[in-house]
């Protein structure tokens, strides 16, 4: 399989060069553009599998460029921006981005997100669903094999962690309180459960999420409980 191509678009060439180095290390072929117009041109000429797009750029900004791309292409787009507010992220994702990374970013996180999107885009669309398999986004839980994979990589969980994850994935989108999870998974009455459940959930997040502080799958609803996001 030939190298996958990534188009990076940012008006700051220092950032472009740095990202290029990280991606080349991961064996991606990299195209660089410093504005939206240039990006669209490269996209027409080359075969690109993923785009990393800065929002604030001269000539054509990231969001406008993304709208134009989305008219014909279905490839993953990761927005990269200094705008870190929730509203900015929501606007970006609603306009067709697959992911949103804020500056300054951790290089490892960015690469992990690139890989995740790439695998989802290239591999998983074709896998036939089995009835024993629970899935959301790149997270797959096989109840028969008691096996969990994230973007194809196997994740090792303890028995309790697996119990919590399975319970949440079976009831995807529903919020459970600590007591409910405790009673279900531990099979005991929830007297003085203290923070056992929340510690377990943090650990699960650390294993399955690219950035555990901004979880993609296992979300914390503060003051109410936890839920598995349906993607």
């Amino acid at each position: 399989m030939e190298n996958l191509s990534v188009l990076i678009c940012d008006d700051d060439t220092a950032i472009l060069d740095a990202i290029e180095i990280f991606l080349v290390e991961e064996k991606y072929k990299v195209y660089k553009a410093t504005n939206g117009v240039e990006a669209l041109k490269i996209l027409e000429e080359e075969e690109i599998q993923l785009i990393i797009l800065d929002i604030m750029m001269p000539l054509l900004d990231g969001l406008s460029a993304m709208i134009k791309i989305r008219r014909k292409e279905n490839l993953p787009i990761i927005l990269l921006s200094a705008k870190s507010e929730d509203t900015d992220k929501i606007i970006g994702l609603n306009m067709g981005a697959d992911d949103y990374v804020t500056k300054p970013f951790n290089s490892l996180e960015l690469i992990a997100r690139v890989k995740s999107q790439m695998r989802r885009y290239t591999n998983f669309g074709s896998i036939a669903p089995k009835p024993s398999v629970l899935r959301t986004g790149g997270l797959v839980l096989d109840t028969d094999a008691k096996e969990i994979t994230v973007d194809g990589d196997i994740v090792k969980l303890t028995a309790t962690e697996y119990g919590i994850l399975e319970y949440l994935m079976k009831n995807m989108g529903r919020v459970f309180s600590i007591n409910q999870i405790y009673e279900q998974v531990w099979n005991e009455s929830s007297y003085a459960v203290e923070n056992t459940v929340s510690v377990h959930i943090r650990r699960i997040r650390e294993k399955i999420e690219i950035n555990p502080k901004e979880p993609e799958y296992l979300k914390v609803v503060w003051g109410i409980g936890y839920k598995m996001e349906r993607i």
Partner: protein
Amino acid sequence: MDTKWKGFNFYNGLKVIIILLMMASVLVIIPSADYIQYYSDQTTDNYNKTFQFENRFNDLLHNVVEYNVILKNEEHIRTSSTNSYIDDEIYQRPSDLEYINEEINNDIEYKLNRLHTIEDHLENNVNFIYYIEDTKTNESFTNIENEDPVDFIKKQDSYVFFNQYKSDNNSNFNYNDDIMRMLKGTDYEVHGAVYKSLRLGDDFFIENAQFNQYMKDYPNIRMILIAASILFLLTFALIIKLIGRDQKGNLIDSSLDRIYNEIQIIFALVAIVFTEVFVNMFYIQDNVSIFSRGSISTYIEVGIYINILLLLLLSFIRQYKNKKLTKNTITYELVKLCFKTKYFRPGIIIIFTAYVFINAVLGVILLATLSQGTIIFLFAFSVFTGFNVIAFIFLLRSLQSLNKIMEVTKQVSYGNFENIVNQDQISLSFRDFYNDIISIKDGMKNAVQEAIKGERLKTELITNVSHDLKTPLTSIINYVDLLKREKLEGENATDYVKVLEEKSARLKQLIDDLLEASKASSGNLNVEFQELDLNELILQAVGECEDKFVDANLEVRVNTLEESIPIFGDSKHMWRIAENILTNAIKYAMPHTRIYIDTRVEQSYGIITMKNVSAQPLDISPEQLTQRFVRGDESRTTEGSGLGLSIAESLTHIQNGKFTIDIDGDLFKVTVYIPLAIEDIM
């Protein structure tokens, strides 16, 4: 002070002298004017031609005629009186007799009195001569012994003649008609005169001497009067000009003018009365007054009255110059008192006075009609009641206006600037007041808007600066990352890169916190309120931070209420508050100590308390700790931005909560109050 003293010496002294001169001239003018005035209507320099002479003469002549023609003697009086009544037929009834007797006796008594009076009067005369003859009987009466008395009398200059038909005299005798009436129906002829050369022994002589003296003194007295009058006019004009001004012509106040004018007038009246009493007490009977018209005492008395009134007049003139003649009155003060409330419409006071007055009048009428019958009384009563009901309605309307103003003021004090009453709904008396309140409101509104605008601009600035800082920071972080992968020469190079990595991460944290703090404190954050469980939140938060507690060698004791604590707050903001206070404890708590986190309910608040023992001595006030960039350690060497507690406090406030910090020695305690979500159930 020196010039003032000098001014007093010369200038004020001068004024005092002028005033004294003026007063003295008054004292001279009064007797001299009286003197001049006494004979001022005479055109003659001969005593025999004066009214005084003629009156006296006339009087005596009348007496003589009355004595000799009417009264005659006691016997004649008794018979004539009795006859005059008895002849009268009206009084013939027996019942009237007693009354008639009484009348006759009275008449006789009166006539006898006259007889003796006239006898006395004539006895004191030596210069008056007369001759009365009854032409029928040739009976005659005279007081001279002469062969031909008529001829002798006729020789005198002042000769007069009367009979029943004619009077022959060269003067306008007052008693002419009276004498003619007495002579009517008689045959008497009356000849009268006064000796041409007067003899000593009666009033004619004295009066003549006085008249001659007067004629001699007249030019001198007249000179004195004119001189005194001129002096008075001069001094009066001068003092009018000088009074109320100092040497340089500036207006000055006299301490006398501080006394209200009404009181000055009363003082003047009291002084006049006092003078009257005083002068009467030491009344001096004297002969200085030539014609006994007045005494020195009277002149002094009148002089003092006039001088008191003059001083009062001067006081008024002085005040007039100072433009306080009307102001320096009790009346003015009273009126001013009524209108003193500058911001109250004067009409109110007038209306109030009118109300009391009308009510009093109506009340009196009502009382008066009590005895006038039921219908009139009922009518008066209904007028009285109606008037008071109308007044009460007006009062209520005013109070309603006041109530509206109070309502608006309350709204403004709550920060609501929009709910404003139209000024037409406010009664006239409060309208100015209302408009003032509206002005205050507008001022406040503007200030608040300016403050909000300023805060928003600040937030915008911080947001923009943060974005601009993040781009270069991205490169720094990434290239530090790349540096780490390079094989670096030099034994310390790896350590240096590590420092760079830590500090750039710190910079990132600072920028994020700054952005959040500015938004939270300006209230520029969305708050999505929903019902949350405080216990759940604390357990989740402690679970999230559990590994950090372990790393910092801290033990956490969570003590939650058994039942859930439903609060009304924003899920994400609540997490930030919990995270920030826990992170604060992790950063600043003494290792190997316990952190206590409790939840409880108090009144309408769900409460989180977090207690820890500080690693550093806390020489700082709780208030300062929630300020931005203030940290417990002054050296700022520890990790952290100093914004954590500030952000937590701001976020608590935008959720209508309270955030307090208590420091007791090294014990550090944070308490967060968030409103419970059960208010509507209660």
